[in-house]
């Protein structure tokens, strides 16, 4: 809400006003004594000679059918809008920001705050613009004394029971009520009774409640019911005793619960980890990308000095709309704990000793040069950016080894056909689907934002969902078809009733989980899925419904860059292992005399076996390119300085290459990016989704049998999937409290 805009509009002396001096008081304005008469005067005074205004918040008008356009007048401006728009939407298109509390464009319309009252000509009373459909020829007036008086009245009622605790409220400075009371509030209250107070609720470790501040807009109730899919919150009681609550003691067990903090227009729901930590005007915002899952949600990292204070979502209609998952939002305290500060070498006594970079790199280079090329293995971690993976691959290739891969892609990933590992439908494209088949994937824990998108589709068009995998709660209705490849085979052979659902659907979607990459029979599974796709008409020239849902932020870029191991059992024979942030690699079979480098930002699993530690910067501290599961390239930006003596991943590898005498030919991030252009040019098209050009029809026929063991779950604990989230205290609390069975 543009505070300045609202305030200036409220403060601007009305030019049709009789009095030159604008008196800010509730009762004493002469024109308010007879609002109808003065608004009639205003109608004549307003001429459309004001400069045209631009739509609020980039509101766009999309006409699905040109004949459905209707003309309305907002403050005298003629305006073409599609049928079905509300008065509020029409005003937004006209560039008029209507104050509102309960209305939210992504939630159903409640119409209970009454803040959005506007005057409509020939209407006897002010109308709630959020709930009123715009009708042809409607003359909407947003700036008249009647509308202003109505809003001032509403505001006074809202403030009646709202505590005056802005100085100790975490919402202070970014509070809709605060902002709008600057425009429509009075400087004194007339309410002399006691204010009501409401008992606070316990919604878990993420959302702090101060229910006395609640203004009953019900945005949180609608969000929980409609978007998050957990019907826990409700509006209880009535009248002045009305309150938001769960009635029975219950925590909010949604992976999207943090979003209620953003949509709460007042300070009733605020962030528990952020409570009393900072004021929003002290924070520096950095627009960057989330890396805790493969969705690549757009986020803003708010930092103060060297510390990340909080993470907020950024609007991106194609990826995360305006929501983010709780893991994305609250993992940031993991960035401050368990960090690796200095290069370290494990001594003879088994303890790490801090050394300087020169010594560490010299030791690594020496050991590396002694190892045979085929004994050198490089593994990129799940949080690695494309630049560092390119550098790692180039460096190890120069050393003569081609055993470079990214964890989570399995022993024999198929990186040849891009359509075989990205989400071909695109995340926003899922909204067109009317039938989903989820194979070995649980989007709710693997990619919460994709799950929210599927849920949105199901709510909109009652799409059918079939799910193959271990029984789970996806927070929407789904048919649990089976647990393993057996069901998949039945569908492929057309014996299963769900096959007719796929083949009868207009836009069927199959989503295969990347957890299946780790299975030995993955080729057979994928060819079965492709058979279903072929029979069910899932891939057409205008529709590609065959998708893979990746698990990690690094995966798509790693496969684009061709980080594929040469042999599937390279670990068993390795003598020199370069772990670039890889924590979840199974090092059990690694020979005891192997030398392990761990380059990363957290002292996590990978460090236990490491001989040398090279500290690197985390995603919040570096510029890096990531490709999300749908093939959209995005870049992170440094929000805070790195910890200790840590360096960017690619710089460490570049320095090491020089010490080892195999100097890589790039010195800047731009240099690496030109190198990437020769391998995967799509990684340079930032913020663009590059669809795969070739379909799976080019794939050679695979004649292998499927193993009938059921699919497992790829993510056991939604809150802890990588080194940052495992170091986070908040995520640990969430795992302890919310995953309790």
């Amino acid at each position, binding site marked *: 809400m543009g505070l300045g805009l609202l305030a200036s509009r409220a403060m601007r002396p009305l030019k049709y006003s009789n009095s030159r001096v604008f008196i800010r008081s509730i009762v004493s304005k002469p024109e308010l004594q007879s609002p109808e008469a003065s608004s009639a005067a205003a109608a004549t005074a307003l001429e459309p000679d004001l400069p045209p205004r631009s739509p609020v918040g980039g509101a766009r008008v999309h006409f699905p059918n040109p004949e459905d356009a209707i003309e309305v007048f907002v403050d005298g401006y003629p305006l073409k809008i599609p049928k079905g728009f509300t008065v509020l939407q029409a005003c937004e298109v006209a560039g008029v920001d209507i104050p509102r509390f309960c209305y939210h464009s992504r939630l159903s319309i409640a119409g209970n705050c009454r803040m959005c009252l506007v005057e409509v000509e020939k209407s006897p009373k002010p109308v709630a613009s959020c709930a009123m459909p715009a009708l042809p020829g409607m003359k909407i007036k947003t700036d008249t004394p009647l509308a202003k008086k109505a809003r001032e009245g509403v505001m006074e009622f809202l403030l009646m029971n709202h505590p005056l605790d802005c100085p100790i409220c975490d919402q202070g400075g970014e509070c809709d009520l605060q902002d709008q009371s600057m425009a429509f509030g009075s400087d004194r209250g007339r309410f002399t009774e*006691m*204010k*009501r*107070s*409401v*008992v606070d609720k316990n919604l878990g470790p993420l959302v702090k409640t101060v229910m*006395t501040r609640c203004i009953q807009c019900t945005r949180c109730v609608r969000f929980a*019911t409609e978007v998050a899919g957990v*019907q*826990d*919150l*409700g*509006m*209880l*009681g*009535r009248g*002045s*005793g009305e*309150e938001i*609550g*769960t*009635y*029975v*003691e219950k925590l909010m067990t949604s992976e999207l619960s943090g979003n209620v903090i953003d949509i709460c227009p007042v300070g009733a729901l605020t962030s528990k980890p952020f409570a009393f930590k900072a004021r929003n005007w002290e924070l520096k915002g950095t627009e960057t990308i989330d890396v805790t899952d493969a969705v690549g949600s757009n986020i803003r990292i708010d930092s103060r000095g060297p510390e990340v204070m909080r993470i907020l979502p950024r609007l991106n209609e194609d990826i995360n709309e305006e929501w983010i998952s709780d893991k994305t939002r609250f993992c940031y305290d993991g960035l401050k704990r368990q960090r690796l500060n200095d290069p370290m070498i494990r001594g003879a006594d088994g303890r790490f000793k801090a050394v300087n970079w020169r010594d560490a790199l010299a030791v690594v280079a020496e050991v590396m040069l002694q190892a045979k090329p085929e004994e050198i293995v490089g593994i990129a971690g799940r949080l690695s950016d494309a630049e560092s993976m390119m550098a790692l691959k180039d460096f190890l290739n120069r050393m003569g080894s081609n055993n470079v891969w990214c964890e989570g892609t399995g022993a024999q990933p198929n990186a040849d056909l891009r359509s075989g590992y990205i989400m071909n439908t695109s995340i926003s494209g899922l909204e067109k689907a009317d039938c989903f088949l989820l194979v070995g994937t649980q989007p709710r824990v693997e990619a919460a934002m994709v799950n929210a998108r599927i849920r949105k589709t199901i709510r909109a068009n009652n799409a059918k969902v079939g799910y193959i995998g271990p029984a789970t709660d996806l927070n929407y209705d789904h048919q649990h078809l089976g647990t393993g490849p057996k069901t998949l085979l039945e569908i492929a052979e057309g014996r299963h009733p769900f096959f007719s659902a796929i083949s009868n659907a207009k836009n069927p979607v199959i989503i295969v989980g990347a957890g299946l990459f780790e299975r030995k029979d993955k080729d057979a599974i994928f060819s079965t899925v492709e058979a279903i796709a072929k029979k069910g008409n899932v891939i057409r020239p205008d529709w590609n419904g065959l998708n893979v849902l990746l698990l990690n932020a690094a995966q798509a870029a790693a496969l684009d860059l061709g980080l594929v191991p040469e042999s599937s059992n390279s670990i068993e024979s390795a003598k020199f292992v370069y772990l670039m942030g890889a924590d979840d690699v199974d090092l059990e079979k690694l020979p005891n005399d192997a030398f392990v480098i761990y380059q990363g930002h957290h002292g996590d699993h990978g460090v236990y076996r490491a001989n040398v530690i090279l500290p690197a910067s985390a995603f919040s501290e570096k510029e890096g390119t990531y490709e999300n599961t749908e093939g959209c390239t995005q870049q992170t930006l440094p929000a805070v300085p790195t910890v200790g003596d840590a360096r960017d991943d690619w710089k460490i590898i570049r320095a090491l290459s020089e010490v080892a005498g195999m100097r890589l030919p790039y010195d800047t991030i731009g240099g690496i990016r030109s190198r990437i252009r020769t391998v995967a040019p799509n990684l340079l098209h930032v913020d663009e989704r590059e669809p795969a050009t070739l379909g799976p029809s080019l794939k050679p026929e695979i004649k292998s049998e499927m193993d009938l063991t059921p699919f497992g779950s790829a993510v056991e604990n939604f809150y802890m999937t990588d080194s940052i989230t495992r170091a986070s205290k908040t995520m640990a609390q969430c795992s302890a409290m919310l995953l309790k069975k």
Partner: protein
Amino acid sequence: MRAVRSTHPANLFLPRVVCGRGTKSVASLLLSLELVENASSSRGQASSRDSSSNPSISSGISIFLHCPELCKHLDSPDNNPDLPWKFSDTNKEKVGYSIIVKEILSHYPSNYKQSAVIPLLDLAQQQHGGWLPVSAMNEVAKIIEVAPIRVYEVATFYSMFNRSKVGKYHLLVCGTTPCMVRGSREIEDALLKHLGVKRNEVTKDGLFSVGEMECMGCCVNAPMITVADYSNGSEGYTYNYYEDVTPKRVVEIVEMLRRGEKLPPGTQNPKRIRSGPEGGNTTLLSEPKPPPCRDLDAC
């Protein structure tokens, strides 16, 4: 509770908690919380002592349990989600619902089952002795296939759904202006004094409880009380108005109910017939004349 309030001058400055009819202050709630806390700590020291034997503790909890406007469920031995609850009926249908539940559901389209929430809650309340335990609300939610919170929302909205225990005879005194002018305060005081309870509290024998109600719509016969009779389950459930009552008469009514006597509902003034004037009609004594404008017999 009023006593607590008066002994705490500090609570003049404390905001009121929305609970009861506004007579409780935060101080009294805090005090009661303290009592509960003390109880739990003292239980640790002397585990043999039953906590409910301490009157101060039970009254502390009862502030919460007998607060009809409290929008929160508090687990207690007779009201928690683990207690099984089913609509009782001997004529079970195949689906497992009783015949009367099926009858109620049949009034609504099958895709709008949730419309049956109020009739079903009413039925559950009649069956469960006048109040709705949380497990009954859960059962209703299961039958109409909505999330339990949607049922809680309805049950907390309507003041005629009792979410804490009431007596077998729940006496509701109308407190709206016409009745108040005609002496409803005295009637409530007489009832409370006679039964020895506070408002919304149940008598020790579990027979009576007294509540307040907003306008019952019979202001011509004010003051009045309603007797909701839950003593015979949903089949024998009655909900009768006793009008033109006096403080003496309500005590008589209570005693008659206690003895199990039936008394005709309606005005308690023997000189009135229904809502007619005392001593018979004074106007409109003859047959009403036909309208002069047209001849009704001609059509």
